[in-house]
């Protein structure tokens, strides 16, 4: 996804998800946990941004 290019390229923003969910609307950015391996109790998973419409996820 495209980053925020203020501050000479420093910084980032969440994806806009504009037309990223094929024809599905509305298409919103969400945090999605990525399970890295065997589940480790009491530990959080890393998260990535995905675009969500209904219960479908799309790459930003």
């Amino acid at each position, binding site marked *: *996804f495209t*980053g*925020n290019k*203020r*501050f000479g*390229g*420093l*910084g*980032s*923003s*969440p*994806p806009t998800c504009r037309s990223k969910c094929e024809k599905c609307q509305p298409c919103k950015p969400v*945090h999605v946990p*990525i399970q*890295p*391996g*065997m589940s480790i109790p009491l530990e*959080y998973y*890393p*998260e*990535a*941004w995905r675009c969500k419409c209904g219960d479908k996820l799309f790459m930003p």
Partner: protein
Amino acid sequence: MLCRVVSPMINEGKALMEMKASFSNVANMLLDWDDVHNSDFCSWRGVLCDNLSLSVVSLNLSNLNLGGEISSALGDLRSLQSVDLQGNKLGGQIPDELGNCASLAYVDFSNNCLFGDIPFSISKLKQLEFLNLKNNQLTGPIPATLTQIPSLKTLDLATNQLTGEIPRLLYWNEVLQYLGLRGNMLTGTLSPDMCQLTGLWYFDVRGNNLTGTIPDNIGNCTSYEILDVSYNQITGVIPYNIGFLQVATLSLQGNRLTGRIPEVIGLMQALAVLDLSDNELVGPIPPILGNLSFTGKLYLHGNKLTGPIPPELGNMSRLSYLQLNDNELVGTIPPELGKLEQLFELNLANNHLVGPIPSNISSCAALNQFNVHGNLLNGSIPLGFRNLGSLTYLNLSSNSFKGKIPAELGHIINLDTLDLSGNSFSGPIPLTLGDLEHLLILNLSRNYLNGPLPAEFGNLRSIQIIDVSFNFLSGVIPTELGLLQNINSLLLNNNKIHGKIPDQLTNCFSLVNLNISFNNLSGTIPPMKNFSHFAPASFFGNPFLCGDWVGSICGPSLPK
């Protein structure tokens, strides 16, 4: 006229039977793998053949509880495109012959007990896109020759015992999307070349023995969505260039990073998770972090951070986890944190915070865990806390809180831990605490509480630990405590409790840790059931209590 030739299909049937022979625990799982009664191996469980050539293109034997080993006959399945053996109990080594399956695009041997080296022959698989060997016991190095696989998109070698360095050549791959190396014993440093992975979104080397610094050019890794270098021995500062990253997760915790938190991190609004905990970071928490209005998890605990908690953190409207504990933070708890409507866990323990808990905190309606243990906080418990209906963990211990324990705490019905110990709370223990039916741990020790132990404690049906030691409690031990069937520790010592030890206490079968010493108890110790296990130290300091120890009014030995 018909000439029978040995077709490759028949060889493949033989190869599959050889594979079956080297598996164990096949009796139920591979019943139909039987070339005597059914020579059509394309119909066998987990086998998929090409419609025209009738050669095996896919083998899926995942999660069948298979033991034994992977036979080298696998290499005879020359048209194999996909092999999935994950989630079994396969031991032995990965056969070198795997490299003969030149069409393989997908290999998943994860969640087994495979040992030995990763065979170099894998690099012969020029079509390979997906290689998952995680959760095995593989040793030796990551073969540098893996870089010769031009289309490899996913490489997951996590949770093995791989040693040596991450081959630098591995980084010169434009198609690799996923690199999972967590939980090995890899050494060496993070190479500046890591940013040559221009198609990578997942970079995970958590839990290895990597040393050195974060490369200065880290900001060039602009395709990364997840950067996890946590739990290594990375030193040096967090480079300014980190601000060029587009990551959603930045996990640098559990290293030896020094210096300050760079202000540029406050511009990284794509961050969903920022974890800088358990390092050696110094200086203040940059107020600009309050800009991170999309961040859900902020972990800065276990550093040497100084200065106040910036009120700007109250602008992190999506925040659900805020852990600033175990630092050297000073000043007061900013009331602005009350704006965090999604806050689930707030941990400010073990800092040098002063002043009262702002009443605004009770606006954090989603709050589940609140911990301010080990600060210099004072004032009383805000009455608004009764509105925190989701609270399960409330720890105000080791501060200077005073006043009465509000009866309204008994309305926070989901509490499993209530720790108010080591403060200056006074007055009686509210009877309403007996309503906390989910409570597991109740610690009111080391305060100035007086009055009796409420009989209502007999309703704490889940309770495992009651500690009211070192107070000024009077009255008698309520017989209702005998109803507590899960209690493990009952610590009533150093109070002014009088009367007899109720026989009903012997009904608490799970009680292993009893201390009622240094009270004004009298009578005899119930001579039955579990009470015979408690040492004299449980009863000392009750001058009128009769027991079986030297110095007791009935001692030194009680006749049976």
